């Protein structure tokens, strides 16, 4: 909302420098978005008096003028025929910039300096209205009022020197969308009430009802509808002060009638609409809804499609205005208008909001009505505008108002318990103080009691209906700054809530494993989103096709990141993301919103070299076992030793060499090599391995008690077997574990060989066994027996050949 300093000062006097003014208003919740001075284009222009005019010796059409500009007398060469001694004129002095150069075809600004014109020195310019951008006459100089004060800055003389405050208002305060509304807040600052313009209406003898009837059919949405009529007026441009006021708010002056309605709206917040009476058919106004969809041409010349059910103002035959939003071209005020009907109404806010949204039109009027105008402001606004129009455009104001008020808005009373103020704000205000603060806002007590007071709320404060609304007002006017910053807090109640989220815990671990955290957009194109395999959730109003679906997997987002980094030559990547994935799911699984399934996942991605290049080690690329190893590391860090890897070939569209992970018997995710076809679509030409895990299942197990350390030494034996290539290492290892006595404490596969040294179809697997007893140091004989039993078992069960038995350290 833009407001003018001079305009505000009509209602309340205040003399605060802009900075302080801004600070004080901001304490009440009115934040300044900008402060701008108007009339600065007239810097360097003053009122001057032509003392003497003589003929230029070298040019017939030029004259030499001596001009008193207050600070001295200037010699100015002037080409206008109407310049004469004794005139008060607008003088641009050296250094000023003439807004429009009349000798330039496009009227570009012209900076002034002292120059010689046909041999005569000229210090400045006596300006025409064209040059000052005030009118069309470029030939004659502008002659000012004879009582204009010599030396006065021209901007002040013209009444355009002003300060425009651009104030950010909140949607709950429609009353702030007017100068009087802002003046009321200033009143709370300075402790005085704003003075509203006095109305003195002179009415003619003929009553308005003689020329017009009004029917409100849609009483659901039209709360109040009032009209007046002015007859025999002459539509002309508005006086300069009115034009300046509107221009200051970036409103375009049109004519006196239209300008007054805009002015009054900006003054008191009441939108008004004038009709040309001659264009209203049947001397009738009817407020009703459109019955079927039709089209309607609004004031701005646009043809708009109206669906049925839109509230309209109509005459006897047709629609003439979209209620509360915009008038129609068919009844618009023109230069030939003689009689007008002036409408002032109060509409159902949600009906206006609906219309405005439906038609995609938002106007100054609709913005006010949809937030809630002042039901009691209807007549004030109407009368104020009627008076100003008569003052400017003449004509007779017919007697009376047709005021149809089907849904009377009652006076509002709101209770307040003073102790509740302190309970919410943490203040120590007395009842007297509380009442005094509210009085500053014209909220006055009607019933007093020690525990409960009743306050009458002004009609324009549509935001106040409850006790908490009054408490807010008390806090606001008292000042948030004065409320103590209390730092004592109770911290010792039982908490249901953890101090660290599960994701935070996992994040630290994964970073520790050498991965870079990424955060990617969860909205992606369908093509990518479906790679995850689940039925994706689509956005019904996406920004574009690249973001119309929610991710079902974290992998595609990370592949985008890989592609981006490859472009910059970074080919060795270890990335991870922790985030939500989404899908539609028709199963019985519990869901929070409709059939949308949401799951938090961790995705690890590895590509490129196993380790940074180093002169002392060979360079090798990552493979599936690097990812598998990282997953095992992560499980172990979280105390999850029950992880089980199940490899199977599926028709998974995202990865091949897929390994599923089971944690404590539940599916917990998968790992694998991203399919080459997928990598191709991302433009990635290098193997990429991923693991995508369900974060919930990675929850660390509580480990509360430690295990005592073994007291006796462990012994190691390495066993090498030759077996068929089809035998799985994991199966063999598991079998040994299950077979062995309690002495076998650990087993690890440390070598796999397949090649020339072995017969075709055979491979060698070497395991390292750890043997130990919790009760004693094992003898060689005991160890040998255990090892022999294991060897025999493996030979029998897997048809294996023992390749070697070695002691190891």
């Amino acid at each position, binding site marked *: 909302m833009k407001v003018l300093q001079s305009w505000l000062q009509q209602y309340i006097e205040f003399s605060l420098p802009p900075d302080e003014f801004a600070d004080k208003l*901001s304490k009440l*919740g009115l*934040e300044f978005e900008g402060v701008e001075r108007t009339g600065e284009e007239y810097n360097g222009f003053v009122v001057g008096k032509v003392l003497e005019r003589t003929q230029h010796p070298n040019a017939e059409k030029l004259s030499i003028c001596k001009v008193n500009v207050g600070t001295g007398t200037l010699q100015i060469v002037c080409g206008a025929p109407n310049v004469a001694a004794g005139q008060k004129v607008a003088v641009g002095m050296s250094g000023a910039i003439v807004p429009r150069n009349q000798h330039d075809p496009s009227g570009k600004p012209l900076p002034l300096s002292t120059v010689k014109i046909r041999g005569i020195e000229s210090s400045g310019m006596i300006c025409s209205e064209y040059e000052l951008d005030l009118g069309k006459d470029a030939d004659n100089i502008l002659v000012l009022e004879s009582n204009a004060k010599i030396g006065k800055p021209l901007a002040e003389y013209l009444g355009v020197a002003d300060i425009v405050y651009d104030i950010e208002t*909140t*949607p709950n305060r429609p009353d702030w969308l007017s100068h009087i509304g802002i003046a009321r807040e200033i009143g709370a600052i300075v402790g005085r009430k704003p003075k509203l313009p006095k109305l003195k209406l002179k009415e003619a003898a003929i009553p308005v009802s003689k020329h017009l009837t009004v029917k409100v059919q849609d009483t659901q949405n039209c709360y109040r509808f009032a009209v007046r009529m002015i007859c025999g007026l002459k539509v002309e441009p508005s006086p300069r002060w009115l034009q300046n006021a509107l221009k200051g708010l970036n409103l375009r002056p049109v004519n006196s009638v239209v300008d007054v309605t805009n002015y009054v709206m900006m003054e008191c917040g009441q939108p008004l609409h004038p009709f040309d009476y001659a264009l209203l058919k049947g001397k009738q106004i009817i407020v009703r809804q459109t019955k079927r969809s039709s089209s309607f041409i609004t004031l701005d010349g646009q043809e708009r499609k109206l669906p049925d059910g839109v509230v309209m103002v109509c005459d006897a035959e047709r629609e003439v205005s979209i209620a509360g939003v915009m008038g129609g071209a068919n009844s618009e005020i023109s230069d030939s208008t003689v009689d007008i009907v002036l409408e002032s109404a109060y509409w159902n806010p949600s009906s206006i*909001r*609906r219309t405005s*949204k439906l038609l995609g039109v938002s106007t100054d009027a609709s913005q006010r009505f*949809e937030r809630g105008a002042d039901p009691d402001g209807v007549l004030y606004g109407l009368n104020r505008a009627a008076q100003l129009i008569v003052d400017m455009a003449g004509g007779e104001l017919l007697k009376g108002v047709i005021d149809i008020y089907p849904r009377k808005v009652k006076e509002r009373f709101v209770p307040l318990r003073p102790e509740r103020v302190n*309970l*919410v704000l943490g203040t120590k205000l007395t009842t007297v103080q509380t009442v005094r603060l509210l009085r500053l806002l014209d909220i006055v007590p009607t019933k007093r009691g020690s525990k409960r007071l009743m306050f009458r709320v002004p009609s324009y404060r549509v935001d106040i209906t409850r006790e*908490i*609304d009054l408490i*807010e007002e008390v806090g606001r006017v008292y000042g*948030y*700054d004065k*409320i*103590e*910053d*209390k*730092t*004592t*807090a109770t*911290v010792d*109640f039982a*908490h*249901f*809530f953890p*101090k660290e*989220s599960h994701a*935070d815990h996992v994040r630290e671990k994964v*970073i*520790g494993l*050498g*991965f*870079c*955290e990424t*955060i990617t*957009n*969860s*909205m992606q194109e369908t093509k990518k989103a479906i790679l995850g395999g689940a039925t994706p*959730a*689509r956005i*019904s109003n*996406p920004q574009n096709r690249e973001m119309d679906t*929610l991710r079902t997997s974290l992998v595609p987002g990370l592949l985008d*990141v890989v592609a981006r980094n490859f472009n910059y030559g*970074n080919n060795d*990547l*270890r*990335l991870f993301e922790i985030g*939500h994935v989404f899908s539609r799911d028709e199963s019985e699984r519990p869901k*929070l*919103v*409709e059939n949308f399934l*949401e799951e938090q996942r961790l995705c690890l991605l590895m590509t490129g070299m196993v*380790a*940074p290049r*180093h002169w002392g*080690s060979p360079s090798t690329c990552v493979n599936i076992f690097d990812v598998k190893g990282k997953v095992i590391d992560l499980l172990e860090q979280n105390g999850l030793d029950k992880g089980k890897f199940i490899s199977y070939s599926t028709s998974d569209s995202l990865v091949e060499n897929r390994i599923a992970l089971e944690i404590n018997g539940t599916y917990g995710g998968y790992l694998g090599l991203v399919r080459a076809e997928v990598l191709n679509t991302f433009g990635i030409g290098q193997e990429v391995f991923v693991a995508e895990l369900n974060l919930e299942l990675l929850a660390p197990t509580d480990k509360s008690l430690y295990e005592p350390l073994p007291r006796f030494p462990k012994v190691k034996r390495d066993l090498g077997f030759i077996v068929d290539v089809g035998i799985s290492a994991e199966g063999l290892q598991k079998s040994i574990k299950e077979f062995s006595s309690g002495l076998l404490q650990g087993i690890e596969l440390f070598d796999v060989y397949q090649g020339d040294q072995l017969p075709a179809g055979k491979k060698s697997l070497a395991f390292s066994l750890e043997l130990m007893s919790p009760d004693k140091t094992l003898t060689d004989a005991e160890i040998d027996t255990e090892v022999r039993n294991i060897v025999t078992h493996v030979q029998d069960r897997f048809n294996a050949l023992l390749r070697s038995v070695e002691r190891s350290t």
Partner: protein
Amino acid sequence: MDSKVTQLRHQAETEIAAVTTQQQLEEFRIKFLSRKGLIASLFDALRSVKPSEKPALGRLLNELRAHTQGLYDHKAASLESVPKRRTPMDLTLPGRRSYLGSKHPLSQTLDEIKSIFVSMGFGIADGPEIEDDYHNFEALNFPPNHPARDTQDTFFLSDKNALLRTHTSPVQIRVMEKHPPPVRIIMPGRVYRNEAISSRSYCVFYQVEGLFVDRGVTFSDLKGTLVSFIKQFYGSGLKYKFRPTFFPFTEPSADIYITCFVCGGKGCKLCKQNGWLEILGCGMVDPNVFRYVGYDAEKYTGYAFGMGVDRIALLRYGIDDIRLFYENDVRFLNQF
């Protein structure tokens, strides 16, 4: 006896000086320090000395043994440090490195915010990113026609009910639905707004929401807690101000501004020339919200607050393009 000790001391000092190899050192040890060595034999001789002389002589022998042991240790250490191989090693060669993990700047900022509130007694809660109209708007006291419910601001999923949450505030509702008061939590998370992607805005961003409900929680407590946060996070020298504003789910409501730390309050591009930066929105939980979740608004009061993490991180690291957070260029990520 005394002279023998002195003589042996000289002998040891002379011989140790000649030692240049481990083998010679070992010979030295056996000769002087072993159980049958020269010093041990002197200790044997001690037995036949007069009792009155024993203590003094014993002390001398002990000193001799310690001195000789010291000579041995010193030599042993100096022999160790001599390179065993003759070919010199180029120690300027680079060391063996590993890939280093890194935490995303948004996560780092979130962590910092969280740790401050956790230290003040807040727990952590979270909720779904797909929400329904009830939790995202209605129970937060948004009127039916509120502009935020427009498709211009909110991403909807197929109908007007399921949507991508536009703020973390619905987590407040979900938590209060489940837990009776008191509740003191922060709720960090990802939110979505239908905003054009530019250097200043992205359609996905992060928020941290806070909520404290108990008997006797006041606006004064809200101020104290958030001032404490601001001082811990931004530094205690900073100026701040609370200004009235409007949110549907809190009343009274406030915006918190701090002195612009780029210009120190003089006015610059970042603070739009007014010297202040808006960093937090907050207020007392509106009684209507309590009504929706079944809390007794007469018994309990509470405050809530929310802040945008992306903006804080932008300011904190001097980043001028918000898209960098979501592009994940490792040259960017590795800086944090």
